[in-house]
Structure formats: structure tokens, C-alpha cells
């Protein structure tokens, strides 16, 4: 039975201009120890899914359709107490803005110990501290530095500390929402290697969210490409990377410059903007930016076409 399953999940934000349908009819599943990557432009709803999982949607956001099951239990409409027990014990999260994700006036070790002892009250302070230093060495941070304050850490060290905190209660799933965006490329590579190693060693399922398809491809076995609140293509890393079916996925891959090809042509810039989610178009949402769009795409919303047991795409004329 899948660790995490979403069926026709729809999430929206109540705004002055009406209900903003940030996520529309999304279905996916995550196996224990598995890794699923969500990739897409900013504003395509990938972070909203992550927040919905943790029950951290802002006041005006809510799940208005579909189901979200974690270990068979539906998370939609769950009580606060249940949710608080679930958070960090079973689902942990790494945020994008590592710069001040840690409380600036509390020692880093105390913040991690707080998480541990909140969920496992029987653990003594000494044992918790001991666990923190082993976690620090796991993410190759010098345990001596655990007593320091967040402002004494570099960006990369902060992100490693957050990863350590995420692992503190041995969760089943870690949601990583653009963990490396704020870091420079070298540190980015180290952090990604870190996440991969940790996932293997601790057998933790990872749900990776990023706008950079290469980063996602490096960490996740399964990839889901999202556009304007919908998953437009889903499949294994190899399938989506090598045989992209949806024009948007192809555009994303073209935008990803590889240094191998000698005469790499500059990618065609995509014109047009993403649709208005408060009043989404009837047909395919990628219509006005899709080079192969035709009348049919405008009229009827496309349906799922599966290219292989694990690879499916939402588009009329798949052009591999």
C-alpha cells in the first residue's frame, strides 16, 4: 500500500478576485523509501501541494476536492491534534528560505532537541543532545558547532542543520521544497548528494519540489511535471528525461543547457504568460504557449494518455 496517495486533489485560495484554483485534479503516489519530484515554473502549485501535505496552508487556502491519504489515513479535514502529532514525527519538511528558517535567538542544538523531546518526551536532554551530534556528523557538520547560534552558520551549514533537524525524529517522508535554490552551485551539489545518501541510509521517502528539472532528475526516480496547477506529465526519471511527451516538458528540457553539444542552439524563448487560475481556460491550460496547439486543444480539456505502465501524459497529440 502506498505511503502517500493523492487522488483528484484540488487546492484553492480565497482571494478578493474569487477562488484561485492553485492545484486542479492532481493524483500521485509515493512508495515507502521512494522519491518523487515535482517540477514546474513558480506559481504552478507545487509548493501548495507540499504545504497541504503538512497542513500548513495559509488561512485563505483550503483543499476543496479529492483525497490525500497518508498510510491509508485521509489528511483532508484531519483534527489539529492529530496533525500536530503527525508533523515532523512522520512527515518532515525542508524549506526553501534556509536563511532564517531557524529561530535566530535560540541555539541550533536547542531547536533540534525541542523537536525530538516534543515528539518523544521520554528521551532525556542528554540523550537528545547525543542524538543531535550524531545527526550533525551524519550531515557532516562539526558537532562542536551545535551549541552556536544560527547567524554563526553559513548558508550551506544552515541547510545541513535543517536537514539534520528534519531527520531528528526519523520521519517516513521528507518534503524538500526547493532546498538548494538559495545556495551556490557547489554547495547545491553537496546538499543534493547529502539528500541522496541520507535517503538511501535512512530509507526515507522524499518528495522533492524544484523549478530546476536537472536538480529533480538527480535525486528522484519518479518525476511529475506541473503546469498551471495540473500535472501534465508523469513518469520515471529515464522516461521523462529521455522521451518527454508533453510540449511543456520538452521546453523545460530545451531550456536546460548541456555543455556536451558543441553547437547547442539557444532555446526558443516561450512567449505568452501562464493562465489566470481564478478563471482557468476551458481547454488545455498550456494552449496559448504550446507550439503545436490546435482547435481541439482549445475546446476540450485533454485526458490522460499512458505511454507505458509508469509514463503518462495529458495532451492530445503526444509528439515524442
Amino acid at each position, binding site marked *: 500500500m502506498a505511503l502517500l496517495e493523492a487522488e483528484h486533489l484540488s487546492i484553492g485560495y480565497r482571494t478578493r478576485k474569487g477562488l484561485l484554483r492553485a492545484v486542479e485534479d492532481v493524483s500521485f503516489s509515493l512508495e515507502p523509501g521512494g522519491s518523487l519530484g515535482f517540477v514546474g515554473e513558480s506559481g504552478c502549485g507545487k509548493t501548495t501541494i507540499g504545504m497541504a501535505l*503538512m497542513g*500548513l496552508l495559509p488561512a485563505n487556502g483550503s483543499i476543496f476536492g479529492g483525497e490525500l491519504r497518508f498510510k491509508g489515513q485521509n489528511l483532508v479535514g484531519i483534527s489539529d491534534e492529530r*496533525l*500536530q*502529532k*503527525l*508533523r*515532523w*514525527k512522520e512527515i*518532515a*519538511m525542508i*524549506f526553501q*528560505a534556509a*536563511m*532564517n*528558517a*531557524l*529561530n*535566530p*535567538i*535560540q541555539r541550533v542544538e536547542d531547536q533540534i532537541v*525541542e*523537536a525530538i523531546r*516534543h*515528539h518523544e518526551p521520554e528521551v532525556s536532554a542528554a540523550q537528545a543532545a547525543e542524538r543531535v551530534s550524531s545527526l550533525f556528523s551524519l550531515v557532516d557538520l562539526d558537532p562542536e558547532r551545535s551549541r552556536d*547560534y544560527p*547567524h*554563526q552558520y553559513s548558508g550551506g551549514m544552515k541547510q545541513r542543520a*535543517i536537514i539534520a*533537524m528534519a531527520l531528528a525524529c526519523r520521519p517516513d517522508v521528507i518534503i524538500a521544497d526547493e532546498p538548494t535554490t538559495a545556495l551556490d552551485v557547489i554547495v547545491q551539489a553537496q546538499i543534493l548528494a547529502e539528500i541522496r545518501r541520507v535517503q538511501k541510509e535512512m530509507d526515507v521517502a522524499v518528495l522533492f519540489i524544484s523549478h530546476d528539472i536537472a536538480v529533480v532528475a538527480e535525486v528522484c526516480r519518479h518525476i511529475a511535471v506541473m503546469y498551471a496547477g495540473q500535472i501534465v506529465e508523469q513518469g520515471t526519471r529515464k522516461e521523462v528525461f529521455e522521451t518527454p511527451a508533453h510540449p511543456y516538458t520538452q521546453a523545460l528540457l530545451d531550456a536546460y543547457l548541456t555543455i556536451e553539444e558543441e553547437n547547442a542552439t539557444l532555446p526558443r524563448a516561450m512567449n505568452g504568460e501562464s493562465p489566470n487560475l481564478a478563471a482557468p481556460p476551458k481547454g488545455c491550460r498550456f494552449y496559448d504557449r504550446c507550439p503545436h496547439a490546435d482547435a481541439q486543444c482549445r475546446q476540450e480539456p485533454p485526458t490522460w494518455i499512458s505511454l507505458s505502465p509508469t509514463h503518462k501524459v495529458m495532451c492530445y497529440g503526444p509528439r515524442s
Partner: protein
Amino acid sequence: MTMEIRRYILGRLFQITLIFFVILTVLFLLFRLAPGDPVSRMVDPNMTPEDAQRLIEQLGLDLPMWQQYLIYLENFLKGRFGISFHYGQPVSEIILNRLPNTILLFTSSILLAAFVGVFLGKIVSWKKGERIDTWVTIGALVCHTLFLPWLALIIIWVFAYWIGWFPLTGMISAEIWTDPSAGLLRKGLDIAHHMALPLITLFLIHFGSYLLVMRSSMLDTLREDYILTARAKGLDEATIRNRHAAPNAALPVITSVGLSLAFSINGGALTETVFTWPGLGRELVFAVSNNDYPLAQASFLLIAAVVLTANLVVDLLYAYLDPRIRY
């Protein structure tokens, strides 16, 4: 105490002494340039012109300005503030008698206002938009803008006269303090009994501003990422509010308390005058209207010193609470 904080304190101390010295000099010049002198106040027809002239010489008011300044500085450094023209007593004696009363009333009212302001600000910001939030905020706004002397008069009228639970004026009741059988506790309670009304007045005026600063600072802090992390850690609302949001939000309140100290000293002087609380503020108002140079100068210097030291304490408290400054 690491090197940074020691250097920080030394820097601040140097700055304070510099400011204090400038205030000292400006004050001296101010008093000497002004028309009118204490001797001219004596209206008694028996005071012949020769008497007046002799008195001026005795009080040293006829010396050239710079000479008076040197004597003034020398006396100041030796802790001798000169003799009050009005009371004929050494000024230091009067100040020693009055300063503790001002500090007692001033610090207790500021502390009480700060704690209640922070406490209520924290609670109210958590319930933003609800009825309690609008009512408490408007209440704080109204309290903060009440005209202090007028509020003091109303409080005396209602609580001291009409209901009659509290004494009308002063700091101690003569009956108790002259009664040999009165013990320390009874005398202490008597002071507290007299201090209740001025304390409430100052508290009402000040807690409003601290509440408003705390509330807006909390609203800002709630948008910070580490609050999201705290919530993601599954902590309950109360822990998030008290252990993560409030301490960070309280820091700007401390600076606001520091900045408004000079303003609250004004309030202190007004309260003391209306409640006849024998503090330095009231003494300054009298000394100023009696042209009593030494007492007015010394009272103002002491009040400036109280404000400066309070500012230093506030800065140190801020440095202590915020590690980003300490290391």
C-alpha cells in the same frame, strides 16, 4: 562577557559621559543668561537694597561668568551641587531624599506597563481580526492618548474622593509614621497605598504604547520563516507563541521602551506634581519657578542621568537578549 560586549559597553559609557558633560555646560549657561535672580524674589519691604546686594555677593552671583563656571565644575566633580537658594540646604541632601521616590514610582510603573503591554500585545496579535483584537487595540490607543494631568485629576477625584479607598496625596500618612508602634510592614504598605494611584495613572498612559508596538512587532514576526518551521515541527500554538514568536517580537519593544524613556520622565514629573509625590520631577518644577539655580540644575542633571542610565540598561538588556549582537 566576550570582547565585543565589553567594547560595546565602554563605547556607550563614553558616549553617555560626553552627552552628560554637554548637558552640564548648556544648563549652566542657560541659568546664568536668564533674567531674574532668586534674591529679587524677596518682596519683604524690610529687605533694603544693601541687604539684597550683600545677599547676591554671598551667593556668588556677582562673580564673572567664567569664574562661576569653574567653581560650578569643581563643585560638580566633588559631588557638591552647591546650596539650594530656596531651602538653604545642600542640594545633594535634597536630591538624595527625593531621588529614591522618583526611581521607585518611575521604574515600577514602567516595568508594570511593559510587562502588561507585552503580555496583552502577544495575546491580542494571535487573535488578529477578532473582536478582542479591535477592542483591545482601540482601548490601548485611547489610554495612550489620554492627557496625563487631567487623567490624574480624574483618578484622584474618583478613587481618592468619591470612593475614598486611596489617600488623596503625598507619599506617607503622618499618623502612621509618627506612631511609634507602626512596624516596617505597616509603613511599607502605607507607601504602597499612597503609590497605588500615581502608579495606575502612569501605567494607563504607558502600557498602551508598549502594547501597540508589541502587537505590530508580533504581526511582523508571525510572517517569519522560523515560525513556519516551528509550526512544521508540530509544536502547539502556545509553545510557538511563547517560545518562538514572543521573544523575537519583544526585542523591538525593548528599544521602544528605551526611546520613550525621556517621554515618560515628563509624565513622571507631571504625575508627581499632581499627586504631590515628593520626587525629583516635582522638585524640579518648584525649583524652576523659584529660580533656585543649584537645585534646578542638579535635579535636571539627575533626571538626565536617570534617563541616560536607563537607556544604557535597555541597550544592555537588548544585547543580552539578542545573541546576534553579543557574538
